[in-house]
């Protein structure tokens, strides 16, 4: 009997050593990226405070162990007469022109669309969303930090697009 207890204890030891990680869970929540501010000539921006926009994030922000995935889903609609291409950046700072945003070191590219032909739209489902994401570690770091940042979208010259995008965020949190 004593030997059996010792063996059972040995089997459970790795789980205990692993850090009592039994009380964590993985959550998925979303932020609708509506209400963009339009700036003439190809740029739009939006401020995000994730805690303000998601009660799930607000409830768990002090207990986040890891940000597992961040993607953009939804539609990008090309409303112009020619082909369009969209790039989305994040930054801690507010800029008023596309060239400021695009200046190296001012922001980080997090999304790049393929070319969207005139009048067409790009639909991004969750299953293929990660293929469009760039610099995922920086995006995750924004959520592990204060969760407050600016999002900029810059379209190719002469084009205009409309966004119906949401951000899906997967976190693992717990005590």
């Amino acid at each position: 009997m004593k030997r059996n207890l010792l063996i059972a204890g040995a089997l459970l030891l790795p789980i205990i050593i692993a850090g009592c990680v039994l009380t964590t869970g993985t959550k998925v929540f979303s932020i609708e990226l509506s209400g963009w501010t339009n700036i003439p000539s190809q740029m739009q921006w939006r401020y995000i405070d994730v805690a303000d926009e998601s009660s799930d994030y607000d409830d768990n922000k002090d207990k986040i162990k890891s940000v597992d995935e961040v993607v953009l889903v939804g539609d990008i609609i090309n409303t112009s007469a020619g082909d369009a291409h969209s790039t989305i950046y994040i930054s801690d700072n507010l800029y008023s022109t596309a060239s400021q945003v695009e200046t190296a070191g001012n922001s980080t590219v997090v999304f790049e669309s393929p070319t969207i032909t005139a009048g067409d739209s790009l639909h991004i489902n969750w299953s293929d969303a990660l293929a469009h994401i760039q610099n995922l570690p920086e995006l995750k770091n924004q959520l592990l930090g204060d969760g407050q940042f600016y999002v900029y979208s810059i379209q190719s010259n002469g084009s205009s697009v409309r966004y119906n995008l949401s951000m899906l965020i997967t976190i693992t949190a717990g005590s």
Partner: protein
Amino acid sequence: MKKFIPVILVLVLAGSAHAIMDISAGIYGGINAPIIQENVKTGTGFGFKAKIAPIPLVAGALFYEARKFGDPKQTVGGITYTGKGGTVNVFGLEALLGSTGGGIGPHFYAMGGISSFKWKRSNQPTFSKTGYNFGAGLEIVLPVGIGVEGQAKFEMVPNGSGASYKSGLVFVGLNYHLGLGVM
């Protein structure tokens, strides 16, 4: 009630009383259910294992499982988006304690194991970590050397950041007992 306990014990241990060593191989399949994990849904899985019980109370098993998670869904602004659950390959080792011999009759046991856990999803690097599991099983060995077995396991895979992915696994399967040493 107490008077039935010896009878139950005799039934449970009847199989191991007939065997001094047992080797078996089997296949199994069942359900792979994530626990507190919203980024995947319940899926299915199947596996193979080889077990050796040098004495009736202790056994070791090598196993391989191919599983998949169900695709998760998230509704935002009235639109439902579907993600990918992905596939999981697990290769591991388990220790079994209890009635682990291959004699005819029911065998109830507890088990714990360690495994190499690889989770593959499209557009993502493979998540490869060490997993741990524990649970219980019941095998009923028939006179022809075939055992019908059910297992329930709790699996936990630490993700390296102080958290873990957890799953509940329920499998049923068939084992063939070579019957070495069966008396």
